């Protein structure tokens, strides 16, 4: 039942998307704008079809820097959140740095990373981390902190060490918040990767868009945007799928699992 309704939801999304694309196609047919302003979806698909390896190669690069940036954000972000919760001193230092960092328009820092790290994958990954890590740290720190005080009392009654409390109570308690943060972070990591490609380098969908823009190749810009949209959507659903597997016990997941014995 639940699986069926989930599939229905995805089917519905596809139906809506298809209808929008058809409307777009029809509008271009009807109003005939200059192709340099708005190409029809059919032309965009034809563009993708004509050079699939080109798009795959660049999409692969963007996907890899995004995932690397996302993965690093999760690992570093969780570590920082643990430090924040474990020590008041670390809390002051890390929180101050993060708040300052977050209040800067991070896109403006991108050129600096190119100076520091060159034009390879590293600056893209670094920018992706810089954009994505904030939501991970903030959400996980909140999740680690908002533990039922009685659960902590229980742990202390049984003489649990701080690490054991972290591992057995705080960390599982923070998992739902971690996934909330990850869903935000995955999109930000993609933004960061593209920003990095805009400011330097010779690979990735951001690079494709930049080059195509220079040549007024609007169809290619749209084709790259289309691939970006697909990547972004798939990444988001991937995080959701992992969440569903990892948190069968969580309130937000229970309706899907029902309360039948397993």
């Amino acid at each position: 039942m639940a699986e069926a309704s989930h599939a229905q939801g995805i089917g519905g999304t596809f139906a809506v998307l298809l209808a929008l694309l058809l409307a777009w196609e029809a509008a271009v047919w009807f109003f005939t704008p200059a192709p340099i302003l708005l190409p029809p979806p059919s032309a965009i698909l034809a563009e993708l079809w004509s050079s699939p390896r080109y798009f795959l190669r660049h999409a692969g690069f963007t996907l890899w820097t995004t995932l690397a940036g996302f993965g690093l954000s999760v690992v570093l972000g969780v570590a920082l959140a643990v430090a924040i919760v474990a020590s008041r001193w670390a809390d002051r230092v890390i929180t101050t740095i993060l708040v300052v960092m977050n209040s800067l328009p991070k896109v403006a820092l991108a050129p600096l990373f190119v100076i520091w790290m060159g034009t390879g994958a590293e600056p893209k990954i670094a920018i992706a981390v810089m954009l994505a890590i904030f939501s991970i740290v903030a959400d996980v720190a909140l999740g680690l902190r908002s533990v039922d005080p009685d659960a902590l009392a229980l742990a202390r009654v049984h003489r649990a060490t701080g690490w054991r409390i972290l591992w057995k109570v705080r960390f599982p308690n923070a998992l739902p918040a971690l996934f909330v943060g990850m869903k935000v972070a995955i999109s930000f990591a993609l933004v960061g990767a593209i920003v990095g490609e805009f400011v330097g380098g010779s690979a990735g969908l951001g690079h494709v868009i930049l080059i195509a823009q220079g040549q007024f190749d609007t169809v290619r810009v749209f084709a790259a945007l289309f691939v970006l949209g697909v990547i972004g959507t798939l990444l988001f659903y991937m995080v959701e799928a992992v969440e569903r597997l990892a948190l069968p016990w969580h309130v937000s997941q229970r309706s899907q699992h029902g309360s039948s014995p397993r």
Partner: protein
Amino acid sequence: MGLCIEVTGGGKTYASARGPVTALADVGLEVREGEFLSLLGPSGCGKSTLLRAIAGLDPLTSGSITLRGAPIDRPPERMGMVFQRDVLLDWRSIRDNVLLAAEFQGLPKRAHEARAMALLDRFGLGAFANRHPWELSGGMRQRAAICRALLCEPEILLMDEPFGALDAMTRDDLNLELSRIQQDGARTVVFVTHSIAEAVYLSDRVAVMSTGPGRVVEVFEIDLPRPRPLAIRESPEFARHVAAIRGLFSRLGIVKE
């Protein structure tokens, strides 16, 4: 019987935003080895405060608490505690929640699995060992919490209104079970409750507390024979104990008639 826990001149002042709050003042209490003692008193008289101090969770601000002569400054070994809410962790099955008591202490989970199952069976939860807390009723959840407290065979069991959130029938059930397990193990229990009848039914002694500030006013010996069937609550001796305690409460102005 020897002395297990001794509180002398116990005082507790909380610092709050609106100035200091005196929760306990000059509390004297002796808990004997192996007895079931209830702390009975109106809301806000400091029962939880006293119990948490005995547990070594929040120290008193004055006076002393000793366990077999040694001051309690952190949770002692071989202690179990049951709270008003069951405090089961949602991500663990009922069995794993019970085993948590061992895991927290760094004891091997394996070695305690058989005892966990035996306890769950004893409390009628055997068939629910693999379920999650949210699949159980309130009474079943509190039973699981009691199993968890009993897992490592505590010598001291502290219970803070464990049945306060349950309906009357479930409460009767659990009172009966608690009175049974009290019989087959030499275990010291300190039990917090609002209910005079519950305190009399379960206890060897009832320490009555009063507010303003919180203190122990009087300790009643409950010499009803054990085992105690639920029907003992209709006996004249039972009524006599209840009346004595209620009389004290009305003299203290806590219940008005």
